[in-house]
């Protein structure tokens, strides 16, 4: 295994070390409190009645028998949502957005996917709630479903919404359509670029709907107090986003909603939308009791965020010397039942790895009768990379150019302008490509029939956005760090490390706690690979605030000017009097007697996010009799900027690769002709198990992000991008036929071989 490549030149005391995670003991002993563990006096259990049809009109809905059922405390339907009683005039410009959000929570006139909530019951026990669901009478008029973008974009397609009009390059069209929007990016002269090319390839690709597959199902417990205070306990990546969504959908003041994020059993982008919270809140308001609502795994698959299935076309031109001259890309992404696929992100990521002078990208956001798509780790980028990187692989074969060398010739670097506008600051793609090329994996011989090697690069923006941190100094010289970022991948540690580094104290002296929305300033989701960057930044600023106040206090105690006091590596000293010297701990002990405690606070919205790149190399072997693919070896190289906690960076890289392998090989929503998902369990939705995977080797490259005090870029999303094209190319080389649709499951590989 190759060691990590550290190009950052700064030496740190705490940052970059592999510290023990603060939440480790609770998690390994089973004491960590997840949403399903919430217990409150008088708690009711609830259950949601869901549409059995992918597309249907609700002709009638009768809940009276369920309401009369013994043990039932409340039944709610869309009629209980405030949207139902508000007019278009009252809602103004928010009408469409709120209508979609409200109908997504509980269907009004139509159900738009199998699993769409229609009603919900709160009862003494889950069994009583289930019995009551059976007493609700719903009469449906079943409508033909539109299940793929190809079906939904046809002129005579079954329409999901009669009031959805295409936003056509910013202009509203006047005919209802399943195409929610058409956007485009263009740079240079595309036609001229293709004329300059010696080789032009045009290919078409498809990918299936896949799920984030977090182990912990969605859950929500709500208590609506008599004074209007609404408390929610749930599993979410973004408690403040849940607060906003719930306040919007229920037309309730945001200040009357408190969201407590419980420990989270995975999210990957799928735990941002408020699916259950508004329903649990309505049931609690009606019953006067706290209400708990849990999804089963089937409900998770059928009614929460898949990543979009896609239809993509890529035309790419290159010169004989291996330079990309032009690209023309068509991306159509499934939005699910309501607009909002990540096609825009897919379009912006599609060519981001390369300096392409002439490019045009058209993107279409298309509604289909599937659950509304949700973010999934680098939303939109893996699909787009599958299409673009696959064409590049074919061009490399045609030109007989080494695929890493081709990528190096075209690689984005500082100063290159992306097709959607921004110019790259210092980035580390070239360093990653070189590290992959120099890795012994890439030069290791791969002999034997039906074996193939694939490589691919991947991009994710990485995000900034708002974060808040408070740091209070304890009398024993430790500090309490209060944050709003839910800890999914070890961020308690990586944020505490940045605070400790800034304060010049030991990592073990920082005690991080994730708190509810009443107890910290606005903090955006744990997502977008932003947390270690932005909440880390907030921790640095809060620590700087603590340092400023500690200097002031030392100056006061010494009767000196603050300008005479230095704070270096956790020690305060008088610049000219060597006898005046205190450690952080010594001063902490004196705080309460010299004017009270010290709390540093910060609210940040940093703009210096550092874009992330990864390069992966994979070897596969195909069983020619069965089409089954075995991953023989996998190496992931990624620029982390600065790996604050290298073990968690490696964990993110390995986790992203594993999800990418699943996406590439076997994961897929399988629908009946009527649009019902047939494989809504982990038995038949085939995520890889430990036995299906090799050790994933990782190489962290550190090209410091100039936009962050410690050089952090963010690492969580990039590693799911390259696996799709790298594996598809490796299989193609193994069998001598291209894989242009994912997943490349054994049946599909057999078909490709025949």
């Amino acid at each position, binding site marked *: 295994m190759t060691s990590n490549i550290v190009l950052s030149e700064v030496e740190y005391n705490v940052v970059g070390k592999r510290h023990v995670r603060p939440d480790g003991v609770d998690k390994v002993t089973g004491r960590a409190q997840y949403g399903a563990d919430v217990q409150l006096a008088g708690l009711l259990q609830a259950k949601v009645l869901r549409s059995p049809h992918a597309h249907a009109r609700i002709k009638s809905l009768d809940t009276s028998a369920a309401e009369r059922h013994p043990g039932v405390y409340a039944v709610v339907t869309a009629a209980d949502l405030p949207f139902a009683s508000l007019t278009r005039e009252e809602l103004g410009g928010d009408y469409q957005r709120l209508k979609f959000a409200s109908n997504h929570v509980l269907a009004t006139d139509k159900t738009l996917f199998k699993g769409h909530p229609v009603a919900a019951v709160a009862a003494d026990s889950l*069994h009583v709630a289930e019995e009551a669901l059976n007493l609700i009478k719903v009469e449906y008029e079943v409508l033909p479903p539109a299940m793929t973008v190809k079906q939904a974009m046809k002129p005579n397609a079954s329409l999901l919404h009669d009031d959805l009009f295409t936003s056509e390059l910013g202009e509203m069209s006047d005919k209802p359509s399943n195409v929610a929007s058409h956007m485009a990016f263009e740079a240079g002269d595309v036609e001229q670029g293709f004329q300059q090319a010696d080789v032009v390839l045009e290919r078409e690709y498809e990918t299936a709907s896949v799920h984030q597959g977090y182990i912990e199902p969605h859950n929500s417990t709500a208590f609506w107090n008599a004074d209007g205070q609404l408390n929610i306990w749930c599993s979410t990546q973004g408690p403040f986003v849940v607060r906003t969504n719930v306040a919007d959908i229920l037309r309730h003041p945001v200040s009357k909603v408190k969201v407590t994020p419980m420990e989270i059993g995975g999210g990957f982008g799928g735990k941002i939308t408020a699916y259950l919270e508004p329903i649990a809140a309505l049931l609690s308001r009606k019953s006067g009791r706290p209400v708990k609502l849990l999804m089963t795994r089937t409900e998770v698959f059928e009614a929460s965020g898949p990543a979009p299935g896609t239809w993509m076309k890529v035309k790419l031109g290159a010169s004989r010397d291996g330079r990309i001259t032009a690209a023309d890309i068509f991306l159509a992404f499934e939005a699910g039942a309501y607009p909002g696929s990540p096609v825009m992100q897919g379009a912006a990521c599609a060519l981001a790895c390369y300096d392409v002078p002439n490019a045009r990208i058209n993107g279409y956001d298309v509604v289909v009768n599937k659950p509304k798509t949700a973010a999934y780790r680098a939303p939109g980028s893996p699909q787009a990379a599958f299409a673009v990187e696959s064409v590049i692989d074919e061009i490399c074969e045609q030109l007989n150019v080494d695929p890493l060398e081709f990528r190096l010739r075209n690689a984005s670097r500082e100063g290159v302008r992306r097709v959607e506008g921004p110019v790259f600051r210092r980035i580390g793609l070239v360093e990653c490509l070189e590290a992959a090329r120099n890795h012994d994996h890439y030069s290791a011989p791969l002999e034997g029939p039906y074996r193939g090697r694939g490589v691919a690069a991947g991009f994710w923006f990485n995000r900034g956005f708002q974060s808040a941190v408070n740091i209070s100094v304890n009398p024993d010289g430790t500090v309490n760090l209060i944050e709003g970022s839910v800890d999914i991948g070890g961020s308690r540690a990586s944020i505490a490390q940045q605070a400790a580094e800034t304060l010049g104290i030991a990592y073990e002296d920082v005690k991080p706690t994730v708190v509810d929305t009443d107890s910290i300033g606005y903090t955006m989701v744990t997502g977008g690979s932003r947390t270690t960057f932005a909440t880390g930044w907030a921790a640095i600023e809060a620590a700087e605030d603590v340092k400023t106040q500690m200097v002031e206090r030392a100056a006061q105690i010494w009767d000196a000017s603050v300008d005479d006091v230095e704070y270096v590596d956790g020690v305060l000293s008088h610049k000219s009097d060597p006898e005046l010297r205190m450690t952080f701990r010594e001063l902490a002990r004196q705080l309460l007697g010299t004017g009270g405690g010290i709390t540093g606070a910060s609210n940040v919205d940093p703009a210096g996010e550092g874009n992330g790149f990864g390069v992966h190399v994979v070897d596969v072997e195909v069983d020619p009799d069965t*089409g*089954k693919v075995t991953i023989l070896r996998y190496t992931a190289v990624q620029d982390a900027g600065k790996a604050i906690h290298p073990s968690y960076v490696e964990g993110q890289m390995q986790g992203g690769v594993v999800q990418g392998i699943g996406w590439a*090989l076997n994961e897929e929503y399988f629908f009946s002709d009527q649009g019902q998902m047939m494989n809504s369990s982990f038995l*038949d939705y*085939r995520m890889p*198990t430990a036995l*299906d995977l090799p050790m994933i080797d990782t190489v962290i490259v550190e090209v410091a992000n100039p936009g962050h005090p410690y050089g952090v870029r963010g690492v969580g999303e990039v590693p799911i991008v390259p696996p799709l094209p790298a594996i598809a190319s490796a299989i193609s080389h193994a069998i001598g036929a291209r894989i242009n649709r994912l997943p490349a499951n*054994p049946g599909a590989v057999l078909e490709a071989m025949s």
Partner: protein
Amino acid sequence: MEAIEYTTPKTIAEAVQAMASAGDRARALAGGTDLLVQLRGGRRSADLVVDVKDIPELNEVSYNPQSGLTIGAAAPCYQIYANADVAANYPGLVDSASLIGSIQIQGRASLGGNLCNSAPSADAIPPMIAMGGVANIAGPNGTRQVAVEDFCTGPGRNVLESGELLVSINIPAPAPNSGANYLRFIPRNEMDIAVAGVGSAVVLDSSGQNFVSARIALASVAPTPVFAREAGDSLAGKAVSDESIEEAARLAMEAAVPITDMRGTVRQRIHLVGVLTRRTLNNAIRRARGEE
């Protein structure tokens, strides 16, 4: 999940009485790896669950060189593959007992339960058919024997009448120069349902170069496990060769009548029957020759 009655009889007679008392609304519980999941998921309903794990005959795993192997209907997989007699004489049975579900599932799941659940994809049934297994059934009218290949009648359906209970499965003592193997195809390496599965058992002559007889059975390619009698019979008296194995594979493919679903297509499944028949026959031959 609805409220259910639960009982733990200590004898076969008590179990039969309990099963009969609720008729079609009674279900026997061994490992529960199918039944509990089905009850919770609303795919089966029952008024009475009869836990048969306390009945001695249903936990028996015993081998006799004359009468063969008796496997109590509730004996979990791990007790089967950990049994030295089974490992020595029935490696083809170990193949399926050690790949059902996962290690955790194998701690509870039983071959009897696999048979009674009667799924077309059941991994334990093809090797039991191939090895000539017989089901011993107890009921209100006494006991009866049914060949394993005649046990299943449809997806989730079988010959058990109201009040009847599977007591054990008997597998004949292995003939000299015999061997068996079961393979299934799954896209992953564990925790999956067979896209197709094939169990083959062969008896060779003393030279090890000719088939005396063979039996082949298929999983996941019809509403029930399939006994591909003609495929096995085609080998009787023939020399062991690629040609004779290929002909058996072709006949096994003809015996498959699969559907296309989320786990595979008709074309893929028929193709896999051919692949797995060749592979299991070759493995069974190696075992018959004592080569592994």
